[in-house]
Structure formats: C-alpha cells, structure tokens
C-alpha cells in the first residue's frame, strides 16, 4: 500500500496568502490544486514536500471570463470538466476543448485543474515508477539518482512534457500571469516551458500562476491532435497543436507546436516558415510536415518505439494541417 508521506497543511483563502506561505516555507513547500499529478507522485516518493499549500479555498483563482477585446481569462484553478462543459469555449476555442477532453478520464477531470495540467510534472519510463522499482535501478537523474537511464552520460534529464493543454496554449499565443513576493510578471506560454526534464518550468517555487489569458483568435483556425496507445485514456506519446490564419487563400500566420517528444513543447519553426505566404496545397503541407519531423528527436522513454514516434510527427502534423484546411471550407 502506498500512503502519502506526512506534511503540514495550509488552505488559505487568497492568492496573496498562498504567496506569503510559499515565501516563508521555501522550496520544501508545494502548491496543490487538484492533486491528480502531485499526490500519485508523492505516494511514489518523487516529491515529498514538507508543506502543502492547497488552492481549494482560493476562489479568485477560478472563473472564466471573456474580455471586451475578445480575449478569454481563465482562472488556473478551474477544473478541466468545467472548461469542457462551457459551450462558448467549445465554439470559440475548439482546440483547447479537444485537448482538455483528451486528458485522462471524466472523473479525474472533475478534480484536475487547467493550471495543474500546464504545470504537469515531466514523465519518463524510468521515473513514473514506485519507490522500490526506482531503488532497484539505483534511481535516475530526475529523482534521487545521478544517471539518466535514457541517455547514460547525459548531464540533463530527458523526461517528456506530457501536458495536452501546454502546446495548445503556445499555439494560441496565451499569456500567463505569475505572482510572487517580487511582484507580478507576465510570461508568454512559449516562455513558460523549459527544455530540461527537471527544471521544466520557468515558474519559480515561490511563484503562483494566477491568470491564463488567451487572446482573441480572429479568423484563425486551430486543432489539437493526440497520439496514444489507448484512446479511452492515456498520456500522449505525441501531441500536435496547430493554428493557421489565412489572408485570402494564402497563409498569413502559422503556429505549430509538438509535444510529448521532449522536455518542453517545441515550436516547429521551420514548418511555420514553410507555410507563410503559401496556399495550403498538398505539397506545401507535406513539406511543412517533413520540416517538423526532421528536428524532432523522441527518445526511448515513453510508450511505443521512438523511431515510430518520430515518423508519426510527420503524419500528425500533416493531418493537423489538413484538418485546419478543411475547417476553412466550412
């Protein structure tokens, strides 16, 4: 039986108090929202925070509101189920709702929050195991050990970012607001993730995510496609988020973000460039897909063979672009 390790517990009512407690406790404290990522990790002793600061009573971190400029503010404490049941979000941001609905199961989405999914711990076959399993291999670089079993000799951890909503937030140009004793700062979703399986977020331990803002999407179209072993529920072994804005028949702006192949969601810059100024012909889409495939380097640390996962980058980017192209015809 896996029990939680002991901890001291705070459940403050305001974001300001959360930040004060985090500042006082230092990095041995952890924020907990839905608990669906943190508690399994605590049971397996990946994380053993001395103090938990629960967000469950912090009402200001919840809520969804459309602003006069067409942007959407989402409180990061909003549960995933509430977002997928919101018809306005479904109509205006279908890629976001597709990503949310693809996370785990309905019962877990009743607990897990959008902020929690953005801050999801990175995952690896050598890390997401119980304590005894990990001890048997003398642990790994990400937690308690000093060898990366995926790439022995590597000085950095290659655990992958498996968030479904992270690549969508990047593709949609979302901004995230963080507060700490040093004040408030805003970061682009693009800069929130770091390509290091251990230090995978630009968020500091004493910072709290307070707002997610998705700008007006204008006439652009977007999509999220997910590859996984079981369609009923599973983490992604590949996630592709794409957004295209047309000027007439020509691509004006393109955003393509690949996830679950590296420690951070990765923008396919070359693919985006190859699309801009062109019509969305089959040849152009195939070229963009190839340019996303070439630099992607999945390692042997999730489900499925990594060479096949790399091939699927090409397939899924092409499918995502085809999906968007046909959505412009409707």
């Amino acid at each position, binding site marked *: 039986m*896996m029990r939680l*390790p*002991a901890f001291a*517990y705070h459940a403050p009512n305001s974001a300001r108090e959360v930040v004060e407690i985090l500042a006082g406790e230092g990095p041995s404290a952890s924020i907990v929202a*839905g*608990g669906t990522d943190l508690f399994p990790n605590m049971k397996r002793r990946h994380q053993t925070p001395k*103090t938990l600061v629960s967000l469950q009573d912090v009402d200001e971190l919840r809520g969804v509101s459309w602003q006069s400029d067409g942007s959407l503010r989402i409180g990061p404490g909003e549960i995933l189920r509430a977002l997928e049941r919101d018809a306005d979000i479904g109509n205006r941001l279908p890629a976001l709702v597709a990503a949310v609905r693809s996370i785990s199961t*309905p019962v877990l989405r009743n607990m897990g929050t959008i902020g929690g999914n953005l801050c999801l711990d990175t995952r690896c076959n050598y890390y997401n195991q119980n304590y005894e399993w990990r001890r048997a291999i003398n642990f790994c670089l990400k937690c308690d050990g000093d060898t990366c079993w995926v790439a022995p000799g590597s000085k950095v951890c290659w655990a992958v970012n498996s968030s479904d909503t992270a690549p969508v937030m990047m593709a949609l140009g979302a901004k995230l607001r963080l507060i700490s004793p040093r004040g408030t700062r805003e970061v682009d979703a693009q800069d929130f993730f770091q390509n290091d399986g251990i230090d995978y977020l630009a968020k500091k331990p004493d910072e709290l995510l307070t707002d997610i803002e998705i700008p007006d999407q204008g006439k652009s179209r977007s999509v999220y496609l997910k590859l996984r072993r079981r369609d009923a529920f599973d983490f992604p072994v590949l996630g592709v988020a794409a957004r295209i804005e047309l000027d007439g028949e020509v691509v004006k702006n393109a955003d393509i973000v690949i996830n679950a192949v590296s420690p951070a969601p990765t923008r396919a810059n070359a693919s985006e460039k190859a699309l801009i100024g062109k019509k969305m012909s089959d040849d152009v889409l195939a070229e963009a897909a190839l340019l996303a495939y070439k630099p992607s380097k999945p390692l042997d640390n999730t489900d499925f063979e990594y060479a096949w996962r790399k091939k699927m980058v090409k397939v899924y980017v092409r499918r995502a672009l085809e999906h968007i192209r046909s959505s412009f015809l409707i």
Partner: protein
Amino acid sequence: MTTPQATVRRKVQRTFTVNGDVEEVSFLPHKTLLEVLREDMHLTGTKHGCELGECGTCTVLMNGEPVLSCLVLGLACEGADIETVEGMAGPDGPHPLQKTFASIGAAQCGYCTPGFLLTAKALVEWNSNPDRETLKEELSGVLCRCTGYLQIFQAVEEACVEIRGEGETK
C-alpha cells in the same frame, strides 16, 4: 506567518456529511478520503485499487460529483457532502442501478462495482437517457477486468428506464 491547519503527526478532526449523516471524524492529516472512509469510518464499500487515480474503483460522490477518493485529502473534505455505495439504497430498497447491476449480472468479482455505481448515479442524475457513446465516455474512468463492460452499459440503460418512470425493471 499563517499557522498550518494541520501539522505532521497529530490527528485532526473534521466534520463532513457521509451518506446524509453529519460525522465528526478524526484521522491522521496525510490520509486520503479513501483511507479515512475505510480505516477511520469502517465504510469498506469504497474499494482500494491502484491508489494512483487510474482505475476508478475508489470513486465516491463529493458534493454530487464523482471524485477519486484515493486522490482527495481527508483534510479537504471539511463541510463536504460525501456519498459512498453504502448510501445508495433508500428506504424503499436498493437504488435502480443496484437492482439492474444485480439482475443483469454487471459484476463478476465485484471489485469495480461501487465505483461504477456511483459514477453512473452522478451521470443519470444529469442525463437519464444517455446514448451508448455518452455512457462509454462517462464511465471510462472506471476499469472492469471481468465483464467486458457490456452488461454494465446495459444495466445503466435498464436502470434509466425506471429512473425516467417508464416502467418496472425486471
């Protein structure tokens, strides 16, 4: 500095409603709702499965919505309304879902049954005429390794007939 609501080793006391009764429960602060229900309240109808939020057998209703009790802190339940499988039967006998699960044989080993019953109860209160696709999606968080799910889907559909008041179940 705010004083923590719970320190490491001392038992805490919390008040919440379980199956309609207001209960004062004391438990160690690191316990999950699953552990509090089973070990401190001796309500063993809620089953202990994967402990990691994957299998769904520990599902209970918290304020009417299904949650995984293995991932809810007992500490987080202050003031909450919890329903477990022990609370499903009413004064008139078993819940329609319990009747059809039994009559159709939607259980073999029975370990997943409490999780299915409560997940289905929350569903039918929101939608008493779910189509098969909705049913599959809504119940996808609970795993059964015996029945192949067909009898479970049939049992929920059959119970919905009674819940909608369209006739007696077998």
